[in-house]
């Protein structure tokens, strides 16, 4: 019973973190119908940003995350304006390869700049690395990260539902042509979406670096996880990302307990099964997986 509780809590915390990491990917996909194969690398950059922020200025990434968010928002604007803008109305493989290429580029730039060494930061004061809750071992870093995840997810949902720009973003994700007929400038929305999506990803990375090691190829692990979360939760649904993250976190923790070597494979198998049997995930709309930019 104790074991079950431990697994559940660990799973939920992990899941919240996964959901946060996948949010940017989901937003960009839902609105611009772009699968960002470089998503993992942006996450990696966020992690390094958090690392360098702490190492060079002493600012704790939990406090510095908003700053990193702003910086990554600008990066996202650059990402769209400098690259993705040229792939939006082209055949799909253009977008696949452009983001794939960017991912390879970023990963190896990081390798050249920072070497393959594993980095992490020590944020929690010694002795406070974990707390005991009902006999369950709870790492505090994961707890803070999960807290961030909850707050950010909530903020994004509020933004999308209440502001004109947020609603325009939702409108574009549901029907681009109708949105255009309402005076929505698609370019401007894509720009904002990419900015926001990358900003969220950067913040996710920064908030993760106290709990996970940062190294240039860490993106490859996270991008797969993010894909699974997004497909599991439902393409284009923010609440779905939260749910998908939680489910994956719990399933993975459970598998990790029973067959640790196969943990990695569970992601892939889950992804294949989902894509084959229920591509619209838990909360997505049927047919979302067939959508292209119309």
């Amino acid at each position: 019973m104790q074991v079950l509780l431990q697994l559940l809590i660990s799973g939920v915390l992990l899941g919240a973190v996964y959901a946060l990491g996948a949010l940017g990917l989901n937003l960009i996909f839902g609105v611009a119908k772009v699968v960002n194969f470089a998503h993992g690398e942006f996450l990696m950059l966020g992690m390094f940003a958090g690392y360098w922020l702490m190492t060079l200025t002493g600012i704790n990434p939990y406090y510095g995350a908003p700053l990193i968010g702003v910086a990554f928002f600008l990066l996202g604007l650059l990402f769209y304006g400098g690259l993705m803008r040229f792939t939006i109305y082209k055949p799909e493989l253009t977008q696949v390869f452009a983001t794939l290429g960017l991912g390879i580029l970023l990963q190896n730039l990081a390798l050249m700049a920072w070497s393959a060494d594993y980095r992490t930061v020590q944020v929690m004061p010694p002795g406070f690395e974990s707390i005991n809750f009902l006999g369950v071992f709870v790492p505090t870093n994961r707890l803070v990260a999960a807290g961030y995840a909850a707050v950010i997810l909530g903020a994004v949902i509020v933004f999308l539902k209440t502001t004109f720009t947020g609603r325009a973003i939702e409108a574009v994700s549901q029907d681009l042509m109708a949105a255009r007929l309402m005076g929505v400038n698609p370019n401007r929305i894509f720009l904002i979406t990419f900015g926001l999506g990358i900003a969220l990803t950067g913040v996710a990375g920064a908030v993760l670096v106290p709990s996970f090691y940062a190294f240039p190829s860490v993106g490859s692990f996270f991008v797969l996880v993010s894909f699974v979360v997004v497909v599991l939760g439902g393409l284009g649904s923010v609440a779905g990302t939260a749910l998908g993250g939680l489910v994956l976190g719990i399933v993975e923790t459970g598998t990790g307990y029973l067959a640790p070597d196969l943990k990695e494979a569970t992601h892939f198998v889950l992804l294949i099964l989902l894509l084959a049997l229920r591509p619209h995930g838990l909360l997505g709309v049927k047919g979302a997986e067939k959508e292209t930019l119309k």
Partner: protein
Amino acid sequence: MRAHGYLATGRRDLPGLALTLLVAVALPLLVRDEYYANVLVLILIYAGLASSWNLIGGVAGQFSLGHSAFFGIGAYSSTILYNYLGVSPWLGLLVGGVISVALAALISFPVFRMRGVFFAMATLAVSETIRILVIYARKFVPLPYSISINYEPGFWRMIFEDRSSYALLAGCYFLVCAAVTFVLTRSYTGYYLRAIRDNEDAADASGIHIRRYKLLAFVVSAFLTAAGGTLMAQYILYIEPGTVFSMELSVDLPLMSILGGIGTVLGPFVGALILIPLRELLVEHLGGTLPGAHLVLYGLLLILIVILLPNGLLGGLARLGARLRGRRPAARPEVRKA
């Protein structure tokens, strides 16, 4: 173009045919220098591999990012059979091919339900899963992580003394792949595949049996890719999961096809011809000093190629040719704006 029996061919095909024969057969016999022969072997094997990918990715329009699965299966099948059971790689090639065909047929059920990026993601996932399973299998089967093949030249061992012989073998492999592509694209099957590629729903509505043709292209592609895996294993004489099931290979094959001209018969060859020497150069000059530098350029190359040359070099040449002849080049295929 007239239909000669089953195939639609014409005089326009002659230069391409001549070039292919020249490259596949004549060059290997002429090139003697060890260094250049090595590059030639790699070019020809990759040209064959890229052509195999092109069947499903270019002609049928189903963009697979998981072909290293078939490559790896081919490599592992023939190597295990040769090393532990003394079976000739020529037979091992067939075994690897058959297993790949079986895998392709099996995964076609879930994977063909998806289109575009999702198909790519799914094939990627399959390929990575297999890689992990192969590594995991070592818990149950006593296999070393990496397997080496003893260098013992012999025709039936598919191991040769000089690289020229390898080049000739690779050339024949490429010839077969190109021939299959040629026959497929010029036949009615190719016509249906292109219809499926251009507009699957319309093709479906026209009564074309989508699943059957996609499966055909996929299965043939799988077999040929596995064959290439066997060849490569017998050339390098060393395999491990990280290299034969690598994602880099899965990305290289479509890249070469795109660079040369996706969907064309010789496009993949042109792509391999450019990319392989380029990569060797990059690794030579940059790989040692700054780890990752050559891959940075590689990533940049990917981006530039796909944005600037969506129809590849052959496509670009075709447009240039049409323009020079005073004809308006056909409109670039682009997704219709809303």
